């Protein structure tokens, strides 16, 4: 019985989170928490002691896992690794930037919206004219 593989479709996936404690608590209450056999979680709680390197490693890990379809990241955390988030171009997992308690959402910093903004910016148009 223990050797039976789990019946799981190829398209079934989970969500990952990189955010503050309260945001992660809320989403864990909603049932998205996952801990694998190696005791690796699908979330990273970011507090004052979390280093940028830890955040980078978590982001890279979550975006490379095949079982993760959406990565939620607080925008202020995304700003710490902005170069990494902006260079991410794959459709799956989808990277969604969400607000946090102390840092409201700013559309100007959103990875996807800033690309669109640049598309219509004067610099972009001027570059084309040259």
């Amino acid at each position, binding site marked *: 019985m223990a050797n039976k593989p789990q019946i799981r479709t190829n398209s079934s996936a*989970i*969500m990952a989170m990189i955010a503050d404690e309260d945001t992660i608590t*809320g989403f864990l209450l*909603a049932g998205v*928490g996952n801990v694998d056999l190696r005791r690796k979680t699908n979330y990273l709680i970011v507090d004052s002691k979390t280093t940028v390197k830890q955040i980078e490693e978590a982001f890279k890990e979550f975006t490379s896992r095949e079982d993760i379809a959406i990565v939620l990241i607080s925008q202020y955390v995304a700003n710490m690794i902005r170069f990494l988030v902006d260079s991410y171009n794959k459709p799956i997992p989808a990277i969604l930037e969400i607000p946090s308690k102390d840092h409201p959402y700013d559309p100007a910093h959103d990875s996807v*919206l800033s690309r669109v903004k640049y598309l219509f910016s004067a610099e972009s148009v001027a570059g084309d004219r040259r």
Partner: protein
Amino acid sequence: MKQYKENHPTNKSVAVTSEDGNQSSNEIAGADQNILNLLDYMDNYLILVDSVSSSVRQGWLELASARYSMGASRVNSSLFDLKSHYASTTLQVDNGGTDTELPCFTLCKWTSSDEAKLEEDQLLKNKSDSLGSEKRKAEESGSPVTANNHAEKERFKSLSMFGTLVSPKLRATQSTFETTLETLVEMSNLRASLLCAYDQVQKDRETD
């Protein structure tokens, strides 16, 4: 005469010019449509982000109320379940057929694919097959209630990491974040459409 010819070109050149004109006007219309689509998606994305912002804000307030009534030691990250378990709320991702490249995300709330649960379901299924059609019908008619009971059990399981008796505010937090998840999945689908429209507009610019 020369002036007449300049002002009234021959029929052939008029036909060629009008074909080129139609083609270019169609291209321009297509490009404009792509830009309009992009702006529409962006507008809808911003609306959804606003909705997520307000619902998570409500969730944080409810969580703070729960923490106030239950005590900070009873609602904190040290109580998170670190034993191996699969997520109760998952996502179904449809990468699309050959005609479409857009991924489609669907939220599956409170489904459990723990091994024990699967084996239990398998055993139940075997039993119901062996019983006969009348009993099978009775079980089928009871299935919506069973699904609701299962969802309630999974909700209780999620809450139970903070204790058996929890504040109603904590249940409200759970409900609020469940709603937020639905909006986030909508956002993911819209993000995929937005990126596709963005790529289209970029291609149009490059061909111009």
